[in-house]
Each structure stands twice: as C-alpha cells, then as structure tokens.
C-alpha cells in the first residue's frame, strides 16, 4: 500500500468511489463453468477487469513420483499471468509473486477438497490470468473452486473469496486497481461459506483492531455474493439453471 498522494478522488462526499461504486458494492462479476475441452473441469471468471481461466486435471498419476503420497491425493496449484495481462509486459517465467499466490490459493482450497479417497494421485489446478486487475488472487480462487467442482473433485464446501480494504479512511468492499495503488489497506479473504472457516487472509496496509474486524466482516459479505454466483454458474452448467 503506497498511500501515495494523487489527484484521484478515492471517495467523494456522497460516499461514491473512483469507479462510481458505493462503499459496499462489488465490481461486476460473471462466472461460467465448463469452458474447456481437454481439462477434467474448467471455469472462466470476469471480476471487474480481471479475466481469468482455470482448468483442473485429475485425480491422476503423480509426476514426479516422489511427490506421491500413499495415504492421500495431493493438490497442486499454479497461478500464472500471461505476459500481456498487465500494463508493462511480464516475462513468461513465474515470478516470486506468482509462486506465493499459487501457494496461498492452494492452502485456501485444501481444507475444502477431499483427497483422502484418492491416495497416490494428484489434482492439478491451473490458473491463467489473461487480464489482471485489483483482487486477482481472490478472483483466481473463486474460479478455481468452480473448476474443481466442475471436475467432480469431492469438496466439503465451496471456497469463495473477495477483498475488502481501507480507502480514504473508510472500510470498503472489493478493492479495484486504483484503490490498491492509492488506498490504505487491501485485505483478501476466502471463506468456506457453509462452515464459516476463513481459509485465506492477507493484509497489505495498516488497520486498527476495530478496522481489522470491520474489514473481515465487510469481506465476508462479498464472499457471500460470490458464493451465489459460483452456485449459479454450476447450476447453469449441470441443471440448465434450475435446482436447489
């Protein structure tokens, strides 16, 4: 968080943010399940200006063999940005940032997936960022969870993610790119919506303890909204939009 001085009005006197949203309003989100031919499961999300594709393979044989576990299946996640996904062309090799995000997404999904019934196998989740905007790790996690369900990987619960943050001394839902650059705090959150377990939590920026609690509560409201859209995407794919 830079907290940089800028001409940008992050929050005006009417409580409207720089992109026209209210403080508790998420960006436009759309999710579609089952978009690839070769993956066992797949999904595509547009979350603000994020455009992200996820594909899941498995459970399948583990290569290299030494990663294989005779008691359980393993989960592997790769978050990868296309060179053209960001303003300044990104080198194709994975950066330290991409490797860290891959790890936190994996650990956010692990409590949900049931891999004990597939010993000696791997489930691979591949995430391609085609266009990046603020909150790409949350959007990536949302689309990965739908792709896992689309692949028929057994799950105790869905995993739904959304960020909250602090902009112009106010806690707001779903930070965009400008707010990420110029705001005061960014807190990505993921939750298993039925059990309430929070499985991803990070923070860039400074918050008081009361702001910290408010920020989590705000983020969880966003996660709930995302959860409904995840279910809608799966319903459209499997039940022609009908059902539960």
């Amino acid at each position: 968080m830079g907290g940089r001085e800028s001409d940008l009005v992050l929050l005006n006197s009417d409580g409207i943010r720089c992109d026209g949203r209210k403080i508790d309003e998420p960006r436009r989100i759309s999710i579609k399940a089952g978009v690839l031919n070769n993956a066992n499961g797949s999904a595509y999300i547009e979350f603000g200006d994020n455009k992200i594709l996820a594909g899941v393979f498995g459970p399948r044989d583990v290569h290299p063999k030494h990663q294989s576990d005779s008691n359980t299946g393993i989960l592997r996640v790769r978050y990868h940005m296309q060179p053209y996904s960001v303003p300044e062309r990104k080198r194709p090799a994975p950066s330290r940032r991409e490797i860290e995000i891959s790890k936190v997404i994996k650990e956010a999904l692990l409590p949900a997936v049931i891999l004990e019934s597939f010993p000696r196998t791997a489930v691979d989740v591949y995430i391609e960022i085609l266009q990046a905007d603020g909150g790409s790790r949350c959007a990536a996690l949302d689309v990965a969870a739908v792709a896992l369900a689309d692949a028929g990987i057994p799950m105790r619960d869905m995993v739904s993610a959304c960020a909250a943050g602090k902009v112009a001394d106010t806690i707001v839902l779903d930070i965009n790119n400008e707010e990420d650059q110029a705001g005061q705090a960014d807190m990505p959150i993921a939750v298993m919506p039925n059990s309430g377990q929070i499985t991803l939590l990070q923070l860039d920026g400074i918050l008081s303890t009361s702001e910290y609690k408010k920020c989590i509560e705000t983020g969880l409201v966003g996660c709930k909204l995302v959860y409904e859209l995840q279910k809608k995407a799966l319903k459209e794919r499997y039940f022609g939009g009908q059902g539960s």
Partner: protein
Amino acid sequence: MTQNGMPNMVMPGDVITREARRAGQNVVLKGDMLVSSKVGRVSVTDDTVSVIGLAGKYVPHIDDLVIGKVISHSGQAWELDINSAYVGFLLATDVFGRDFASHADELSSKLGMGDLVAARVANFDRTRDPLLTIDDRDLGKIDSGVLVRIAPGKIASLIGRQGSMVQTIEKATNAAFTIGQNGLVVISCEGPEELLRAKKAIGVIEREAYLPGLLDKVTASLGSGSR
C-alpha cells in the same frame, strides 16, 4: 424440493438434511448435517442418503463392466486407461492362462497400444490400483464400432430403467451398444446415418440427464433424424 423435503439437485457444501440418516456416496457428515460433496442429484434408499455425481472421473467398483484403452505394458501386465484416477491392470495370466511364461508369449501380440478392451473390475481398494479381467463371455478386445464418451455419472440415465433407454436407442438406430460404467460407449451400427442419430441421442442424455421426461426427449430426437 423433493424426497422428504430434501433438495433434488445439490452442489458441494449444500446441506441435504439434518435428519438422522446414513451418509452414502458423495455425502459427508458434518455435525448433525449431511452435506453433499459434489454437483449431483440426491438419491435416498432406505436409510442412506447419496448423491449421484454428474461430474468427474470414474470411480471403480468391483464387477463393473468398463471399456479401457491399452496405454502401456510390462512383461507381466497391460496398463489400461479406464477414465479413472487410476490406471487399470490386466494381468498377462488373465489372457494367456495360468502357465503364462513372460519370455515365450509376447504381450503385444494379443493387445497393442491403443486397443480398446471390454473388461470387468475384478478387484480394487485404496491400497491397490484396479485389477481388470477379460475372462468372461463378451469381454476382450473390441475390433469394430465407434467410441463415444459420456460423463460416468450419466451412464445410469443412458441405460435407463431395466435398460429401457438404451434399448429404445438401439431399436431405433439398429445399433448395438457396449456400455462401460466408466463413461465409454462403443456403438456398432450399419451406416453413418444410424451412427449420427445414435450419437445425437447420447448427446441429449449428456445435456439433459437431470431433467424429467428424458425418454420422451430421446425418442423425439431419434424420430427427427429418420426419414
């Protein structure tokens, strides 16, 4: 809502019921709740609540008929892709008999890479990969026909009650179906016209397996292509 107030179609994490029932396939017990672990349809038999998963790979069950593709072999066994998390093994002794000697009988003379095989699951548990057998009538290498894929969770819909669905399609297209529980189906029929109609009928089941009146829709699709 159907079936004693339980939902019909569920997603991972959806609570199916708080009633005291046994958790069957694709259902997990969380506190006093039965929760679905997959996208699928709820099925209640006796005291057990299960979910018929509509997505995902085949989970082997002993005695299932499956169609496998030979992808490799060692001196003692073939490895078959059975659309599962695990590769299926077909032992050379199963094909050549008990007195099989690996130096004398060359495995590839019987089954080569890419060959399709109708087999039965002889054994499978969490410590061992599925063991297959072709030692029965109508099992073994498949020499003709066209391979079609459907989600393993929709095979029950393709077969229908007492085989009614597949019989309807077979009769209308003059085709013979070999149905693997693992989602692989081999269609043998006279000409490309019949094949196209049979494939179309399977397409209807793949898309609409979850909706009521499936048999009528399939019958309609079969009628539309003919004459």
